[in-house]
């Protein structure tokens, strides 16, 4: 029996863990603490702050999605968070390869994997929100 691909789980332990990790990576940058050497070597201060801010807010949004009671609010939070997080992860992975070359490849692959997972999740959430929109239209039309 195949389960339908509707509202996906938002409290998956891996997703919550990675969201916490994004905050751990982004918050020190925002607070003026140490930042990843590969990024600070490639980005000016204000873009580094954008990177830290996106990671922190995105991570908080995903943690919020796991915490709130309403599945719909959670979907909105996830829809806002995943794509920017994915782009920032790809940028970080590229920075790692740019600075460390082949030596940074495995770390870059892990970070890029996070980006890929976020991209797939963003697609799932957006698809579910579209279905929700259609369901609302059906309800209103009925």
């Amino acid at each position, binding site marked *: 029996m195949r389960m339908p691909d*509707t509202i996906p789980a938002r409290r998956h332990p891996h997703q919550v863990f990675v969201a916490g990790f994004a905050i751990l990576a982004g918050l020190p940058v925002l607070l003026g603490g140490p930042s990843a050497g590969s990024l600070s070597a490639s980005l000016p201060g204000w873009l580094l702050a954008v990177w830290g801010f996106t990671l922190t807010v995105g991570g908080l949004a995903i943690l919020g999605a796991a915490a709130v009671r309403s599945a719909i609010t959670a979907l909105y939070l996830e829809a*806002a968070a995943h794509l920017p997080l994915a782009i920032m992860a790809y*940028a970080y992975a590229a920075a790692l390869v740019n600075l460390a070359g082949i030596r940074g490849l495995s770390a870059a692959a892990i970070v890029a994997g996070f980006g890929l997972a976020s991209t797939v999740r963003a697609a799932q959430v957006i698809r579910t929100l579209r279905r929700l929109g259609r369901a609302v239209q059906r309800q209103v039309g009925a």
Partner: protein
Amino acid sequence: MNLEPLLQIAVGVGGLAGLASLTGVILQRSKIHAEAKKSGADTAQVLADAAADLLTPYREQVGELRVEVRGLRGEVSALRRHVDQLDRLLLAAGISPPPFLWPPVSADNDLEPREQTNG
């Protein structure tokens, strides 16, 4: 190859994507609210109904599985009762009942490998 300019553009785009997705979500939410309001219905109710609509397939299937599991449990209990009854009858007839070994639980639930999932 120096990737710095590309990285800077990527982080800029990421920041803009954050703003855009936040705006998109707010717009989509207000659009759904406006549509619900236009019909004169209670917005929260319409949204809850729509979400229930999306979850219905899950709920129905989970409900069916629960009924199936309840039925199977009933069958197993009936089988245990019959075995006990047979044991008592054999003992009453002076025959020592053979030990009844329940068949081992199938580790793969009789599914083909490709059908097995982690749920």
